[in-house]
């Protein structure tokens, strides 16, 4: 009852001074728009790409180079571990099969022929059959290849929805063959649209790899090695390597990514022990000449390690929140002006028996009424800001996946509106307090 009366009063008083109201709405709106744009983008960097499994999927790291050549390492034995493994270690872990599921993988680049008869380069990934279940890849047609295909180095392939639509429009291509770099492969499955953001299963390809598209096709790891498909990702070596693909396989170069699925904490502990023992074994065999160093990180830890928030984004977030602060200070000043201007009216209400609390509540309602349209303005500006961000990413060459990252969910819409109202009311706390402290008698006299 009282609330509707306050609302009526608020709207009446806001309409009396349209210019001031519009100014307040715009100012708060801009502040909200700038900070929400940055907040949404920042949040996208930390979103969990696979919520029900992020505590079960782990990346093992093994120190295969030792103190002298370890990245960032000095003579004191400091430094970091690589985010990739050598081929030897990756196959060693695959053969041990100590995890519930595991896959070694690396990026490959193949070529096929488009429907127009033009050569078409495609980015793919060599992985084990476990990959699809570990990362919960949805399938439209068919399914993953079998463990026997892995063992038998079968010429089988799984296509992404996009590539399948491009090469085999409107049909189910499972069972057909596709020519890839001069070799025929049998299509066993077509994935449904699957574009995890960030592309957490391979974050090793530089600062923007989290925003890359999922791969266009998948082939068995063993087949890729047999066909000597060159690595299309990053590779690091610390010594001369014997020539050819065989030389790369035998080398201490790191270029293979590895994931293990460990359903329980106990399993993860056991796996880490296994990794340590593996490294100790390599030392005994004379390959490593240093104390074993291994790590095992789950999806969250891995993302924290691999995805550094771009410096430009961190700078913009600092600036955007400074901007919001200025907007709120500005709004506070304008509120102060508005309430002091209405001292007479408020004085009359006090004299007629309204308590300080009543006056206070009335002012809170009035500011909230300003805050809501400010939130709408802020929301519009946030949409515009995110749209321009998407446009920027497109130009910068990263993928459609970014669209999902920088879109505003229902949750964020609610958060924006609530933030706008709260920020406006907070900025007006002092003006409200002052308005409620007015002495009625003095105000009446001044009339």
């Amino acid at each position: 009852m009282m609330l509707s009366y306050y609302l009526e009063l608020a709207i009446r008083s806001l309409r009396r001074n349209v210019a001031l109201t519009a100014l307040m709405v715009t100012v708060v709106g801009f502040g909200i728009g700038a900070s929400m744009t940055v907040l949404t983008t920042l949040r996208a960097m930390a979103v969990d790409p696979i919520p029900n499994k992020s505590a079960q999927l782990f990346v093992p790291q093994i120190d295969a180079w030792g103190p002298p050549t370890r990245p960032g390492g000095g003579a004191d034995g400091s430094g970091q571990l690589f985010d990739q493994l050598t081929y030897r270690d990756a196959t060693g872990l695959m053969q041990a099969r100590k995890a519930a599921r595991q896959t070694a993988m690396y990026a490959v680049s193949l070529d096929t022929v488009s429907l127009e008869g033009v050569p078409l380069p495609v980015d793919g990934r060599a992985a084990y059959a476990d990959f699809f279940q570990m990362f919960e890849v949805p399938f439209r047609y068919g399914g993953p290849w079998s463990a026997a295909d892995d063992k038998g180095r079968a010429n089988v392939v799984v296509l992404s929805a996009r590539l399948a639509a491009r090469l085999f429009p409107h049909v189910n291509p499972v069972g057909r063959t596709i020519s890839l770099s001069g070799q025929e492969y049998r299509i066993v499955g077509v994935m449904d649209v699957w574009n995890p953001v960030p592309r957490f299963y391979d974050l090793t390809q530089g600062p923007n790899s989290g925003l890359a598209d999922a791969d266009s096709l998948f082939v068995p790891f063993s087949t890729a090695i047999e066909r000597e498909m060159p690595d299309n990702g990053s590779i690091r070596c610390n010594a001369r390597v014997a020539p050819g693909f065989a030389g790369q396989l035998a080398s201490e170069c790191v270029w293979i990514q590895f994931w293990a699925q460990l359903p329980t904490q106990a399993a993860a502990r056991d796996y880490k022990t296994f990794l340590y023992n593996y490294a100790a074994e390599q030392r005994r065999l004379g390959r490593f000449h240093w104390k074993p160093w291994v790590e095992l990180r789950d999806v969250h830890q891995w993302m924290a390690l691999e995805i550094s928030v771009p410096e430009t984004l961190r700078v913009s977030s600092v600036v955007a929140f400074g901007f919001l602060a200025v907007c709120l200070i500005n709004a506070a000043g304008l509120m102060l002006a508005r309430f002091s201007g209405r001292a007479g009216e408020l004085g009359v209400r006090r004299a007629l028996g309204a308590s300080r609390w009543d006056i206070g509540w009335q002012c809170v309602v009035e500011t909230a009424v300003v805050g809501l349209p400010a939130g709408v303005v802020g929301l519009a500006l946030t949409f515009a800001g995110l749209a321009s961000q998407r446009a920027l990413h497109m130009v910068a060459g990263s993928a459609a996946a970014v669209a999902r990252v920088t879109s505003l969910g229902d949750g964020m819409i609610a958060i924006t509106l609530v933030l706008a109202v709260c920020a406006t009311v907070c900025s007006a706390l002092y003006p409200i307090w002052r308005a409620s402290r007015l002495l009625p008698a003095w105000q009446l006299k001044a009339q």
Partner: protein
Amino acid sequence: MAAAFMEILPILKALRRNKVGAMLIGLQIAFTLAIVCNCLSMIQQYRDDAGRPSGIDEADIFTFSNQWVGKPPDLPARTNADLALIRSVPGVVDAQVTNSFPLRGGGMGWGLSVKPEQRIPTSPTTIYFVDDHGLATYGLKLAAGRWFTASEIGEHGMHDMTFPASVIVSDYLARKLYPSRNALGQVVYWAPTAASRIVGIVERAQTPWAAYGHTEDEQSTFMPYHFVNSGVYYVVRARPGQLNAVMTAVQTRLYALSRQRVIDQVQSFAETRNLAYFRPRSTAVLLGGLCLLLLAITLFGTIGLTMYWVGQRRRQIGMRRALGARRLDVLRYFHTENLLIAGSGALLGIALGLGANLWLVSHLELPRMSIAFVLAAAAVVLAVSQVAVFWPALRAASVSPAAAISAL
């Protein structure tokens, strides 16, 4: 001077009655200044970064990737045929096959040492494969020594780990390797058993990742190799003014020679540069836009608050006018008052801005801000605030002396 001082005292007294309002304007000025000066500094930083020359003839160069399809066995022969063809296209000065080029983004990196058994390399470097046409193609400037001769050129596959007898390095890398003597003729080590002699030094050659930061932007080494790989880059230099025509002609001729390839990423070097600095540039534009918006908000906020202020003090203004103050005096009163508030805000803002810069320097590895930006931002903010107060002050000046009594 004395008159101005006499004016300030009553202003200060009047301000004491509106402490919070004045404080809010001052705070706003302070924050605005702190943000604007840091943004200006970051924008200037971007301009400095993006303005560094790559060392090559940027105006006339274009590049493209060439991907052979279906694993042809005779790659070296095909590459030679391609190069001969491109070099024969009218309007082409010269052409190169390579693994990477300045500002491309990705490329090869290696740690280079001056002693055979060195645990930590002396300097990182990028590796560019070039042949005897490299100097003419890139338009590099030889500072000392010589360029490669045709007889020196070897072949190098993607994962070959061979090293040539002679290399050419950028001047920056030469000084990093041998700070105290002439690097020309000296030996450098890629591995304990792999050494090369420096036979030439070029004035400047940026790395593929020069746009990403300042740490590895000019450490470049040229090796006398033809890059033998299914995917390579061609670098072509056209005669001045003929770039566009040559870009189309080269593609058509190459496809006519063999259709068993994919030509992609055909870019003039201007586009390469544009793309390399895309992110920092968009951030600079964003920061600039935010600054303008911020100044606009400060402007309108100050107008709004002063306007209200004037309304509050109509009686006081009328009284002053009745006591003989001219319109100009009233105008000056409000401008002086604003200068006092904004000036104190600006002082606070300078401190805030410098503090924020220190934080940015330590947390985000940004460079220190020059004091010029602080002063420039202070001047801009004070000017905006003076402009903002002009209109309300004009309204105040138009208050008639009669207002002194009519409001009673």
